[in-house]
């Protein structure tokens, strides 16, 4: 219980501290309406705000406060990093803000691969810009930053964690997480819990091990590491054929976990197993890949796990947000965890014990499972693994849903997500006896599908309450935000930000942007106004009622 004492001292100590930046553990744990202190906005991953100034009666009057268009030009940026100088005149390239900005004391903090910014939340004007000279790695996206006190934390594609001074954007330290030469790349928004900064990495291009680690917020030193696959003799090792397959089994935790401060448990969603599509060399369920794992953040020790995609062979990461909320199941109050998995299944767990309470298939076209085991795990159909002549599988590797944030509304009791009815042909292309790693030995051919939808699931039954099919065929874009103003905000895939009635899906308001929503909307109070903030491509848009 060291952490509790530490938290207490942080809380007491913080009360006297004045302002720029300054974020205390208490403020992360119970976010003020005037803040958005973590990637998810809270520890629970609900993407739900109690704010009501913007509500169903006035949402039609929402108007633009400002737009901030970010530039990747490094002119005037504070520069760090161990990579080469960028080539002069090199095209900055298209930025995509996938990070959900932190909002603390009137300042927004957010990041894209190799870049971090502080922006004035009242005007959208840049306060500072930090640029990291990269050594490589896949620049696919950056989910954002973590904050503690006056310090910011973010990860880079070449696998460093960097701590910046929130006031100045100056670098405080940087630490190597993994080696980019082994094809790791890092996208996760670090999560701060007391005296821990929780860090994860990604990468499927080589069959390397995945892990989550905790670092000291002051020094950046490692406190513990949790590997997402066991080693011989450890629990879970029986789900792998040998030591080699475990040590090369992947399971990258590349999205921020959620956290229950009362239970002191961290809920870590893990990525798919490796080799990605051909599982011959890793026969078994392959724990703890494509799972939700409950860890003690002080020690990194696992309390329980639930594996949503046993022996995955379709790149179905379980990195969709494990949302935490309390509810009543069959007359018993329960601490719950709900996840809509990329593989098309909805899972409801007791988050104290990990016991499965409900499993349903939310995708009406998923075709790879033969039902559920008594423990709630789907039963994969081996004929839907990649085949020489091709297997038609729904969903394809993009999933029936994916990492963009879902939302839970405690008033409607509905779990909202962007879903997609898609298919792919999975082919085996290996020659017999060939040693396979990563994506080798296989080929996925995308097949046209039925487009995407905004879908609402009743958490008690796992059944779809309503579904709004986007007519454009491509599906929704970005994550979701619910509010107590009885609003559900979503991006429609046609570059519109849309407000829906969370009870029915009815459209109440929309605004056309210049790009599809690339992060998830967030909301906070500032100077008596409730703001709605969203990232779309290279720009942030702030709305409020005038």
């Amino acid at each position, binding site marked *: 219980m060291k952490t509790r004492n530490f938290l207490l001292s942080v809380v007491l100590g913080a009360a006297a501290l004045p302002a720029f930046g300054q974020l205390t553990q208490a403020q992360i744990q119970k976010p003020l309406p005037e803040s958005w202190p973590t990637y998810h906005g809270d520890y629970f991953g609900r993407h739900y705000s109690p704010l009501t100034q913007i509500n169903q009666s006035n949402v039609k009057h929402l108007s633009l406060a400002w737009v901030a268009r970010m530039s990747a030009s490094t002119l005037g940026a504070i520069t760090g990093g161990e990579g080469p100088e960028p080539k002069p005149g090199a095209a900055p390239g298209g930025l995509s803000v996938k990070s959900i900005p932190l909002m603390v004391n009137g300042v927004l903090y957010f990041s894209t691969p190799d870049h971090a910014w502080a922006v004035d939340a009242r005007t959208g004007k840049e306060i500072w810009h930090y640029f990291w000279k990269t050594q*490589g790695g896949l620049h696919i996206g950056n989910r954002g930053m973590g904050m503690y006190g006056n310090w910011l934390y973010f990860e880079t594609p070449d696998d460093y964690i960097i701590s910046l001074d929130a006031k100045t954007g100056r670098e405080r330290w940087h630490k190597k997480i993994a080696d980019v030469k*082994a094809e790791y790349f890092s996208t996760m928004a670090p999560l701060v819990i007391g005296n821990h900064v929780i860090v994860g990495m990604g990468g499927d291009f080589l069959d390397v091990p995945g892990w989550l680690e905790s670092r000291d917020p002051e020094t950046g030193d490692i406190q513990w590491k949790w590997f997402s696959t066991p080693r011989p003799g450890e629990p879970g090792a029986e789900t792998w054929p040998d030591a080699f397959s475990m040590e090369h089994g992947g399971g990258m935790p590349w999205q921020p976990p959620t956290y229950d401060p009362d239970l002191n448990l961290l809920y870590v969603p893990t990525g798919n197993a490796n080799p990605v599509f051909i599982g011959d060399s890793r026969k078994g369920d392959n724990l703890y890949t494509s799972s939700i794992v409950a860890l003690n953040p002080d020690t990194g020790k696992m309390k329980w796990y639930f594996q949503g995609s046993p022996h995955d062979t379709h790149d179905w990461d379980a990195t969709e947000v494990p949302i935490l909320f309390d509810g009543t199941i069959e007359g018993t109050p329960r601490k719950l965890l709900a996840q809509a998995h990329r593989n098309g299944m909805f899972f409801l767990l007791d988050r104290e014990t990990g016991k499965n309470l409900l499993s349903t298939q939310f995708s009406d076209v998923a075709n790879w499972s033969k039902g559920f085991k008594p423990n709630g795990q789907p039963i994969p159909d081996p004929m839907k693994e990649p085949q020489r002549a091709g297997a038609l599988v729904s969903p394809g590797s*993009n999933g029936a849903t994916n990492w963009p944030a879902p939302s839970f509304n405690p008033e409607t009791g509905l779990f909202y997500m962007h879903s997609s009815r898609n298919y792919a042909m999975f082919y085996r292309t290996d020659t017999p006896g060939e040693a396979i790693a990563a994506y080798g030995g296989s080929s996925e051919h995308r097949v*046209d*599908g039925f487009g995407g939808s905004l879908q609402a699931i009743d958490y008690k039954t796992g059944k779809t309450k309503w579904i709004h099919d986007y007519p454009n065929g491509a599906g929704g874009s970005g994550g979701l935000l619910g509010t107590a103003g009885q609003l559900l905000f979503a991006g*429609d895939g046609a570059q519109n930000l849309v407000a829906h009635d969370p009870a029915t899906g009815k459209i109440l308001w929309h605004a056309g942007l210049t790009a599809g929503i690339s992060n998830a909307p967030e909301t906070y109070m500032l100077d008596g106004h409730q703001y709605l903030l969203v990232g779309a491509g290279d720009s942030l848009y702030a709305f409020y009622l005038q």
Partner: protein
Amino acid sequence: MPLLSKPYSLIVAAFLFGSAVAPLSAQKGTYDPAAVPRGKEAFGPACGFCHGLSARGGDGGPDLARSLFVMGDDHGKQLGEILKTGRNGMPAFPDLTPSQVSDMASFLHERVEAARARESATPPNIIVGDAKDGLAYFNGAGKCSGCHSATGDLKGIASRFEPVALQDRFLSPRAGGGRGGRGGGPNRAAKTVKVTPPNGPAVTGTLMSVSDFAVTLRESDGNRRTFTREGDVPKVEITDPLQAHYDLLRRITDKDIHNLTAYLVTLK
């Protein structure tokens, strides 16, 4: 493609993230392909006992295809130093010549690349089905003969497309990049739309785009028109000439797919 969390191939990555820095393995010139067989020969007797003949790990020696040391080696420079002195229990091999070391480095770098295998582009022969059953499906449950005929539009189709392309095409006809369209005459696969405003005549044309808030079409004379939408007003009816292919996805089995392909490849 905001839903895409991880690219499934380098090509996709390069396409979607044009400015992205490619993974290191995409960088060229890490080894001389011609030296790989010579390197393998030198490696076997000297190192294979511990690291395995394929360098993927053996009795006590680590898997060199995933070794950060090998990945960081520059054309045998660092490797040569270790071979001279040994390290971590590995004995020294002072008798290896510089050219043997350089060949071995090429072999090991080739091993690293092989371990980083990407998706293969072309599946091998995929014809496993029964052409007779495929024909029955074509005329029966598949309802293909409602629009297509072996002596008409599909005549000779198997000489125009590889079997895999043929199979992908009936499952995903639009992804195949339909004929016609821009500057190429009428696109038979284009969706059409009929928009009926509350007061006024219906307008019909080729669907350009549609969302919950607007629908844009092109009339037969080339005129482009956009209507704003609010709920069910105006009435919007979309017709997709390829709808039958999409309907197929929900009910076709893998066996049906393989049989249908086995039949289609006979249409030379």
